[in-house]
């Protein structure tokens, strides 16, 4: 298997549009790296540059330590799974999987052995003689993965492979791809806009926005210590609540004041936010880091009126409108709450995040 290094990679399209801006990523051997971000963040372009389907405007791309900027895709020893599967519609599943090996003039026996081996791994042995149009979405996706597996490439690339599947199948395939990674012990680079996919599958997540890397880290690291407001809001579902609050001093304590309520800062936060006294910052708290209360307490609770209640069975999402903001909390599904009821949410202040209002960087 292989390492992949992206050094100061830029992609500028005709007309000066900068799709990827100075991207640096080190991907270790056998690592599962997920590039995640909203549409237009440059994640697919980055993947396509690794594949060789897009030219690199500047920077260096190394696979296994070898510079491959000008190496054609077929010689990079990579395989790619596309969003729309990209199966050859006129070929059977067997021929689809064998195509790459036939082109590379592998002996027939080896092609047969590899195709059947991959089909066994993916549990598609009975589909080998079918054409793609006779397959369901999930089966097509398996064939697309199989086509990559038979090649035994150094690096697997996945371009939003699950986004055309329904929710249930997506969860199933997610697990299967993770299991496949463990089995093949291959280097895999996976692009998605779905943060849940990123969190559940990745060893390392690269969060991108407007062509720029916002943060690289493990799933828990990104969740607990986001670099900036964008990463904090992108990772987690429902997303982190953000409120603009003013830092104020009251005696020896510091508070973050929203207008209709204020929250007392912890000692650690006090140290960090002392320079911000009298200034506005962005306060962030995850929905799962609040608990429900009926009694408002100065310095401890977020107070407001319930606007929406979403019972999900295992938990309930309650949307609370404060005087200026809306806050969502994940609460115990056994608690009965009605719309328009006045309630309070107690944030776990140790888990609260603060971001600079202008730079949006985490204050830490």
């Amino acid at each position, binding site marked *: 298997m292989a390492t992949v290094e992206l050094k100061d990679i830029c992609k500028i399209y005709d007309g000066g549009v900068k799709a990827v801006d100075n991207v640096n990523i080190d991907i270790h051997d056998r690592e599962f790296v997920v590039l995640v971000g909203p549409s237009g963040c440059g994640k697919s372009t980055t993947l396509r540059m690794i*594949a*060789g*389907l897009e030219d690199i405007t500047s920077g260096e791309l190394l696979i296994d330590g070898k510079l491959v900027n000008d190496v*054609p*895709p*077929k010689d990079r020893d*990579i*395989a*790619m799974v*596309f*969003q*729309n599967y*990209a*199966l*050859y*519609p*006129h*070929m059977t599943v067997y021929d689809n999987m064998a*195509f*790459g090996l036939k*082109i*590379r003039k592998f002996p027939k026996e080896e092609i047969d052995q590899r195709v059947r081996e991959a089909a066994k791994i993916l549990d598609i042995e009975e589909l080998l003689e079918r054409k793609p149009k006779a397959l369901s979405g999930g089966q097509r996706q398996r064939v697309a993965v199989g*086509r990559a597996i038979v*090649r035994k490439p150094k690096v697997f690339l996945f371009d939003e492979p699950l986004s055309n599947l329904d929710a249930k199948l997506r969860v199933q395939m997610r697990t299967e791809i993770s299991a496949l990674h463990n089995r093949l012990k291959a280097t895999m680079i996976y692009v998605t806009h779905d943060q849940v996919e990123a969190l559940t599958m990745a060893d390392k997540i690269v969060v991108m926005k407007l062509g720029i890397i916002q943060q690289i880290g493990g799933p828990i690291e990104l969740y607990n210590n986001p670099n900036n407001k964008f990463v904090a809001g992108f990772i987690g579902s429902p997303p982190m609540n953000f409120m603009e609050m003013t830092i104020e001093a009251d005696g020896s304590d510091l508070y973050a004041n929203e207008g209709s309520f204020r929250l007392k800062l912890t000692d650690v936060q006090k140290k960090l936010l002392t320079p911000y006294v009298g200034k506005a910052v962005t306060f962030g708290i995850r929905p799962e880091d609040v608990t429900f209360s009926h009694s408002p307490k100065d310095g401890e609770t977020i107070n407001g009126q319930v606007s929406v209640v979403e019972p999900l069975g295992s938990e309930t999402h309650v949307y609370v409108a404060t005087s200026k903001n809306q806050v969502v909390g994940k609460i115990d599904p056994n608690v009965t709450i009605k719309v328009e009821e006045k309630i309070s949410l107690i944030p776990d202040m140790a888990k609260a995040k603060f971001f600079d209002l202008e730079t949006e960087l985490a204050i830490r």
Partner: protein
Amino acid sequence: MKRYSTVGKVLSYLLMISFTVLTVVPLVWMILSAFKPHAEIVRHPLMPPLSWYFDNFVLAWTQGHLGIYFLNSIFYSVVATVVTVLLALSGGYALSKFFYRSGKFIYMLYTLGLLITVHSVIVPLFIMETRLGISNTRLGVVLPYIAFGLPFQVFLSTTYIKGIPDSIQESAIIDGANYFQIFWRIIIPVATPIISTMFIYTFLGNWNEFILVLTLTSELSIRSLPVGINSFAGGMSRDYGLQFAALVIGTVPMIIFYLIFRDKIAQGFAAGATKE
């Protein structure tokens, strides 16, 4: 509302029936008349034949040299069609999947060719071919056939191939295929429906072509069926029976051809319209 739709249905059926009658009756009349001697056609033009008179076909075939014209028609149609379709497909592939900056301009040039009629360039074409020394040769017929066939065929193939997802080509590139292999092993098989349409359309056009062969050739040995059939009209003698028999010889192969491939023609156009 229901009454309106019933009236509408009746009217549309009437219109379609009239159109069918207008198309089919002359065809049937031509076929029936081909089995009547000249005198009988003149005396009873609309009546079916009193007896089946086959001599018209034998005489037309031998006196009118339809055998050689028939072979020439097959040669021109097959060669020009194969070359036109191959060129149009490769052009369509390049124009729709290579994303050259000049691609749009070249495509525009091709489609502009749709506006040029044979009649408007026939004289300069004749002069050009004479100067090149290819007038009155088979090459001199086939080349303009290809040139006049290309604009529409490039339009058809470009539109269809554009509809084939780029990711299929990219997938083949990563699989290790070169552009020729992608064209031959992926694009052509995937584009089969439109290729059938292109073949049939071009073949029919070439088979029926008249003005180019008439103008660019003078030797009997390289002329095609439409010109041969035309030679039965006019001149000093007139035999309607022979004319109709010659017309049937020229038309029937195309009708059979159409009946065999009509599904493909419909599929091709439908596939072009609804390709994902």
